[in-house]
C-alpha cells in the first residue's frame, strides 16, 4: 500500500516522438544565405537549431515557441537567413475541445515531463463553455516570490475507501486513475503502457469490458476490472484478482448504448478473450437487464462482495437529469466510488448523435451530485470521481473545485501516445497510429517502454502544474480544494467588484 512517506514519484525521462517529424506550431525556414555562424544555436533556448559538420540545421522545428521566444533566432541572425511561419499541418489538427495547442502541449508534456514554456495554450480548449469558460481565481502573484514557493510539495493523495468499512483501505498518491479501455478497442501495448504508468504512479488503471489479458497479471494490484453489460471476459477469478471492481452502467459518450466493437477489430485474440467469433461485430446490450432499480443494483454489489469481500466497488454512470438520485442510490447499495462520466467523454466508437446530445456535460453533473450527497449527509462516505472531457491539469483543478475527489483519465493518455484525434478509432483495422487497434502490424508501432514513459511524463507534468496551482492557493493538500467553488470564476457570469 502506498503511504505518503515511502512513495516516490518516478523520474522524468525525455521521450521524443516516435515519428521522424514531430508536428509543431511553427516552422523555421533557413535560406542559402546562412553562413553557419552558429548564432542561432547559441541564442535558441529550446534546442531548435543544431550545428553539424560545419552546417547549421533546423533540427527540431517543433520545439520553436514562435513570437513568444524571449530572444528569437530570426532577429539575431546576422544574415537574415531565418524566417518564422506557422506550420500549416498544425492548423489541420485539432478540434474545439482538443485544440491543436492542447494536443501539442500534451505531446510536449509526454516528451519532457513539464508544461510548455511558451507558445502553446495548454490550459484551456476552444469549446466556448464549461471548462473552457471557467478560470481559477488565484491570489495575485507578488513579484518573483510567488506565494508558497519553495514550501513543502502539496499532498496529492486520495483515499478511495471513505466508507471506513472492512474493504481495502486504498490510498492513491495522485488524484487520478486510468479509465476503462477494453482489450480490443485498444492494443495490448496501449493497455500495458497505461497500466505500467499507473503502477509507477501508485494509482490504478481500468481494464474496460473486453476481459483481463494474462499480460496484466503482474500489475494486479493496480488494476480495476470492469463489469459491463456485455460481461465479456468476466470470470470469478478475474473479480478475485483485483482490489477494485467497477460496474459500468453507462458511458458518457454513448449514454443509452452498450459497447460497440466493429467486426474488423474482433481479431482471433480479441475473440478468444471475449468468447466471441472472429470478424463479427460485438454490441453490448443496454442496460444491464438484471438491473432495473437500486435494489437490483445492490444485488450486483453484493454479488461482487461475495466473491471478493475486500474489494472496493466503483459504479460508473453517465449523467441523466436524475444523476444525483443514482449517486445516492449507489451509496445505499454499498458502493465506495461513484464515477460520473460526462457526456463529452471518450469512446472507441459511438453514434455522433449520442456523443453530442444525450446526457449532460460533467461540469453540470458533478456539482449537482456533490451538493445532493452533502444534503443527504453522505458526501464524506463516498469517493466521487469525474471524467468526460478532462484534458489538462487545469481541468482537474476546476472539477475538484466543483466538488470531485478525483478524476479518471482516458483520452489524454492516448494523446500522450500521439493520438491526433482523427476520430477513426473504429474503422477498418483501427487506429493508423497503432494506439486503438488490435492489428498485429499496427500495434507494433508502439513499444511498451516508450508508451509507459510518455504517460508517466505527462502525469508528472500534471502533478507539477497542480502543485504550482495549489501553492498559489496556499493549500497544503489537494483535499482542501474539493468543493471550493470560490476558487472559480465563469467568464460568462463574471462581474468585477
Amino acid at each position: 500500500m502506498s503511504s505518503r512517506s515511502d512513495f516516490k514519484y518516478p523520474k522524468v525521462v525525455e521521450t521524443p516522438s516516435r515519428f521522424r517529424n514531430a508536428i509543431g506550431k511553427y516552422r523555421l525556414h533557413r535560406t542559402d544565405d546562412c553562413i553557419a555562424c552558429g548564432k542561432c544555436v547559441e541564442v535558441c533556448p529550446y534546442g531548435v537549431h543544431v550545428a553539424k559538420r560545419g552546417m547549421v540545421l533546423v533540427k527540431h522545428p517543433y520545439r520553436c515557441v514562435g513570437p513568444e521566444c524571449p530572444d528569437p533566432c530570426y532577429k539575431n541572425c546576422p544574415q537574415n537567413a531565418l524566417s518564422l511561419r506557422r506550420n500549416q499541418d498544425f492548423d489541420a489538427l485539432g478540434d474545439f475541445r482538443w485544440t491543436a495547442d492542447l494536443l501539442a502541449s500534451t505531446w510536449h508534456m509526454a516528451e519532457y515531463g513539464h508544461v510548455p514554456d511558451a507558445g502553446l495554450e495548454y490550459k484551456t480548449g476552444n469549446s466556448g463553455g464549461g471548462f473552457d469558460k471557467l478560470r481559477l481565481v488565484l491570489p495575485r502573484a507578488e513579484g518573483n516570490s510567488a506565494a508558497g514557493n519553495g514550501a513543502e510539495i502539496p499532498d496529492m493523495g486520495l483515499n478511495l475507501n471513505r466508507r471506513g468499512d472492512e474493504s481495502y483501505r486504498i490510498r492513491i498518491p495522485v488524484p487520478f486513475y486510468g479509465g476503462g479501455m477494453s482489450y480490443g478497442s485498444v492494443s495490448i501495448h496501449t493497455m500495458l503502457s497505461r497500466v505500467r504508468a499507473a503502477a509507477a504512479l501508485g494509482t490504478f488503471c481500468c481494464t474496460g469490458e473486453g476481459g483481463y489479458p494474462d499480460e496484466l497479471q503482474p500489475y494486479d494490484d493496480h488494476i480495476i476490472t470492469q463489469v459491463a453489460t456485455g460481461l465479456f471476459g468476466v470470470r470469478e477469478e478475474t473479480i478475485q484478482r483485483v482490489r477494485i471492481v467497477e460496474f459500468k452502467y453507462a458511458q458518457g459518450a454513448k449514454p443509452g448504448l452498450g459497447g460497440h466493437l466493429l467486426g474488423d477489430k474482433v481479431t482471433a485474440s480479441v475473440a478468444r478473450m471475449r468468447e466471441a467469433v472472429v470478424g463479427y461485430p460485438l454490441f453490448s446490450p443496454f442496460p444491464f437487464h438484471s438491473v432495473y432499480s437500486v435494489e437490483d443494483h445492490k444485488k450486483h454489489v453484493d454479488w461482487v462482495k461475495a466473491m471478493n469481500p475486500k474489494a472496493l466497488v466503483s459504479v460508473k454512470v453517465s449523467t441523466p437529469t436524475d444523476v444525483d438520485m443514482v449517486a445516492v442510490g449507489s451509496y445505499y447499495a454499498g458502493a465506495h466510488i461513484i464515477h460520473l462520466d460526462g457526456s463529452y467523454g471518450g469512446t472507441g466508437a459511438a453514434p455522433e448523435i449520442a456523443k453530442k446530445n444525450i446526457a449532460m456535460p460533467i461540469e453540470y453533473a458533478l456539482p449537482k451530485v456533490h451538493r445532493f450527497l452533502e444534503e443527504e449527509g453522505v458526501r464524506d462516505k463516498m469517493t466521487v470521481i469525474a471524467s468526460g472531457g478532462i484534458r489538462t491539469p487545469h481541468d482537474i483543478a476546476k472539477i475538484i473545485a466543483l466538488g470531485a475527489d478525483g478524476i479518471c483519465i482516458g483520452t489524454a493518455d492516448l494523446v500522450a501516445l500521439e493520438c491526433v484525434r482523427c476520430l477513426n478509432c473504429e474503422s477498418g483495422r483501427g487506429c493508423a497510429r497503432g494506439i486503438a487497434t488490435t492489428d498485429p502490424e499496427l500495434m507494433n508501432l508502439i513499444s511498451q517502454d516508450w508508451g509507459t514513459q510518455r504517460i508517466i511524463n505527462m502525469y508528472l507534468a500534471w502533478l507539477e502544474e497542480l502543485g504550482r496551482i495549489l501553492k498559489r492557493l496556499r493549500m497544503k493538500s489537494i483535499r482542501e480544494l474539493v468543493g471550493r467553488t470560490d476558487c472559480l470564476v465563469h467568464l460568462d457570469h463574471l462581474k468585477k467588484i
Partner: protein
Amino acid sequence: MPKKYVIHTRIVPHRFEPVTPSGIIAWEEGCLKCAVCVKTLCIYGVYDHRGLNATQMIDSIDNECMNCFRCVQSCPKELIHKSMNPEFKAIGDSYWAPNIIARLWYQAETGKIPVSGAGYPGPFSGPGFDSMWTDMSEIVRPTRDGIHGREYISTAVDIGKKPAFLTFDADGKPAEDVNAIIDIPLPIMLRIPSFGSITHGIVKGWAMAAERLGTLVAVPEEQMSADLAAFAGNIIPVVGESSSGAEVLRGYHPMVEIGAPEAVNVSGKFVEKQNPGAVTVVAIPLAEGIEQRVLGLAEAGFSVLHIQGSRKGSFVDDQSRSLKEGIRAVHVKLVESNMRDRVTLLASGGLAMAEHVAKAIICGADAVYVDFPLLIALECRMCRRCVKGLSCPVSIEEASPEWVALRSINLIGAWHNQLLEVMGAMGIRDARRLRGEAGRAMFFEDLDQATFGSLGELKEGFELE
C-alpha cells in the same frame, strides 16, 4: 402491437465527388526516392490508386485521406503536408455549416447513422437546439434497447382533430364532424424546400420517397404537376389565397395545407368544396406573438397548426430567437389553455440534423417537416447560385426521380434510427409520449445559471488563470 416499422436503405452513390475538409499537399521536388516511400505505407492505400477526377479537378487522395498524419510525420524530406480546404469552409452558411452538410451527404449515400471514434469534438453548446441535451435512463428507470431492434419502439404519430369527447344529437348521431386522423409511421413529413434546382422530376422523386416511407410530402401549389397524380394520397398541396382552380389538386388528398393564416377563410372554403373531409393544416409564420395566433386558430376550430420558422431555424422577424423557443412557447400556451390535446402541432424551418427532430418533439411539436436536408441529400451545397439564376454546380435538375427517392429514403432512414437511439436512451417507447417531455431534457440556460451563475466574483488582489 403494430408491425415494426423499418426503413430499408442501401448504398446510393453520389454523382459528384464531395468536397472534403482538408487535402494533402505532396511536393515532388527534392524527393529522395527512398526504397520504401512513406506513401506505400499508408494503411488506407490512399496513394496506391490515386486518380484525378478531371471534370471536377479533384485528386482522389484528398477524398480518401483519413487524417492519420503518418505520411506527414514520416517523410524524411518533409515533402508531405496537410492543409485545410478553403472550398469546404465556403460551402453553406453560418447555419447550414459545412460539417452538417457533409454529414447529410454521408447519410443520404449510406443510409447509416454517422458513427466515429473518440469523444465529441464540437463546441460546448450553441444557439437553438444546440443549447439542449436529451435525458437518458439509468438504474432508477429502465431504458429501451431500440437501436438494434431488440425492443419495440413505436415512432408513429397521429395528425388531425382530436376532440376531448364526443357529443351526440337527439338521434344518437355525433353532433359534430369527427375528422379523419392520419397516422404516419414516423414523426417526419417531407416538404419541398423554398429554393433549389427543383424540377417536376425532383418533386416526383420526393413523392415516391414519401409513398415508400408511408409519410407525406408538402408541395406548394405552383409545383404541383400531372406527374403527381399517382401519389395524391401522399401529397399535401400547399394552397394560397389565389387558389381557385381545381388543377392545384391532383386527385383526392387526405391532407391539405393552407399556406398563410390570412387565407384561412377563402382557402378553407376552397379545400372543403374541392377536397371534402381532408385534414386541413394552417401554416403560421414563426413571429412575435406566435403563441397567441396559434391559440386563436385552435379556438376557431383549426386542428392542425404548422409553425413555420425561418430557413435558419429562427423567428422570421427576429434571428436571435430560435424555433426551439417558439415551439416551447406555443406548446406551453396551449397546455395552459387546456387546448393542447385537441390540436396537432407541426414545426418546420432549419431542421438540419436528426437530433433536431427529437428535440423539436420534446419542445412540444407532434411532428416536423423536413425541407433543405432533402435537397442536401441530392448533393446540394447550399451555395444559392440557383436563387441568382445561375447553374447548379451539382446539376440537381438532371437527377432521376428514382435516385432522388433512394437518397431521400436513406437520409430519413438514418434519421429514424437516430430518433430510436434518442428515444431508447430516454426509455420512451412511443413517439407520442416524447411530445412536450421538456422535463426529460436539459436546457443550457437553466443548467449554466444554476451551476455557474454564482461563480462571478473576482475580488481585489486576485487574478484569473
